[in-house]
């Protein structure tokens, strides 16, 4: 390729890069230690888990309540549109240099903010778009507002809430790789270190590991989403 030819340093690298990446994957040393694949994967998953739990704690109650009241749709749209315009890298950097301290705490907080829009939107849409007839029937049976929410609206909203959770988990896992650029942990460390030391077998290995981790997580979450969706609702359209 012409781009490679223009950069002699990379041209040499392009030769046998696949071979060297396979060698990298076969070296047991790359899996151990604080910057080994095992520790970094665990850290990556921990960051993802913590951020999603934090986001759920904020977004689900708010989204479900707004959906129950049938208000706040505009707010949900504004939040999701705005979040698309704010670069994750920028928010990660801002939090990293803020007063939140070092380590993974700023990363988790920044990622939690990015997990809120899909959770909020799906919880809101899930609850607010419950069939009005079902709601009326529940009311007619003498259910209180709280009972309608608990016994009718929430069970019917489960597929959409689960879809939001799936989107949030996969998105956060993907974005967590950026934390390494601002001194955070996770599998992105391999890519950042690899570029710093011009070790492109490690860069490629890191990229492949993150891609596989995200795809596996997507598969796992799709299975979870299917499992928690009541049989009767499985054929319905799912918004993802």
């Amino acid at each position: 390729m012409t781009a490679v030819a223009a950069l002699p340093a990379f041209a040499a690298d392009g030769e046998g890069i696949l071979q060297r990446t396979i060698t990298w994957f076969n070296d047991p040393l790359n899996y151990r230690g604080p910057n080994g694949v095992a520790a970094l994967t665990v850290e990556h998953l921990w960051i993802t888990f913590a951020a999603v739990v934090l986001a759920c704690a904020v977004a689900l109650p708010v989204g479900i309540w707004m959906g129950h009241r049938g208000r706040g749709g505009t707010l949900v749209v504004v939040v999701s549109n705005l979040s698309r315009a704010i670069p994750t890298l920028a928010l990660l950097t801002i939090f990293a240099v803020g007063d939140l301290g070092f380590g993974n705490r700023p990363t988790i907080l920044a990622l939690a903010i990015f997990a809120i829009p899909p959770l909020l939107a799906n919880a809101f849409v899930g609850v607010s778009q419950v069939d009005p007839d079902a709601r009326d029937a529940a009311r007619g049976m003498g259910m209180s507002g709280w009972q309608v929410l608990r016994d009718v609206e929430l069970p019917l909203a489960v597929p959409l809430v689960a879809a939001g959770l799936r989107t949030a988990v996969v998105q956060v896992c993907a974005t967590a790789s950026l934390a390494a650029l601002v001194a955070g942990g996770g599998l992105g460390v391999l890519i950042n270190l690899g570029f710093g030391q011009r070790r492109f077998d490690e860069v490629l290995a890191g990229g492949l590991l993150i891609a596989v981790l995200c795809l596996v997580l997507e598969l796992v979450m799709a299975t979870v989403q299917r499992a928690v969706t009541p049989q009767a609702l499985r054929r319905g359209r799912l918004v993802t």
Partner: protein
Amino acid sequence: MVVGAVSAADQPPNPWFSLQFARENTSAIVAALQEHVLLTVVAVVVASVIAFPLAVLAARRPRLAGPVLGVSGVLYTIPSLALFAILAPFTGATRTTVLIGLVLYALLVLVRNTLVGLQSVPDDVIDAARGMGYGPGRMLWQVELPVALPAIMTGVRVATVSTVALVTVGVIVGYGGLGQLLLAGFQNNFYRAEIMTSTVLTVALALVLDLVLLVITRAFTPWARRSAS
């Protein structure tokens, strides 16, 4: 702050906003902004040119729609940093690497929206046009495209805004537009003004481009405004 004179001198204030920074670094900021706009526009234009025929093909052959959407979904799951890392050993630390990644992500959004737009053209409309003797080419340009235009333009807007945000990740191979400033501020002793300036400019750029596309959409779809009012 309750610190001694010496340590206060050691640690100058590190404000989030600084006009002085913007004044003293105008040329660097403008250069980063230009790079950012260039990468975004080229990526979205190239992606649109590729996405349109793909979506038309998928709309014409429903059997292809599943695989096209499936592949795009899988690709979209791969994080941008990982994609750049996978491309870089082959295409080098070049603008090309960033552009390939950006085009791929924009492509997925555009194909989906264009396909949805084309599929949403009512069968009655197609039948009527066919009855009037429209061939496949004229049908596409004069019937399907105009009806699908709002959905297509929504896709272009989403793709543009996401691309503006994604460009910053290009910093890993040295072509991140405003992302370069962002990370430079981080590495330059956590210089907050530099970080904040590039963040605000990135968000502003996304909003401005979105607004421009909205105005263009309105200009090209006068019937949508008429039916709305």
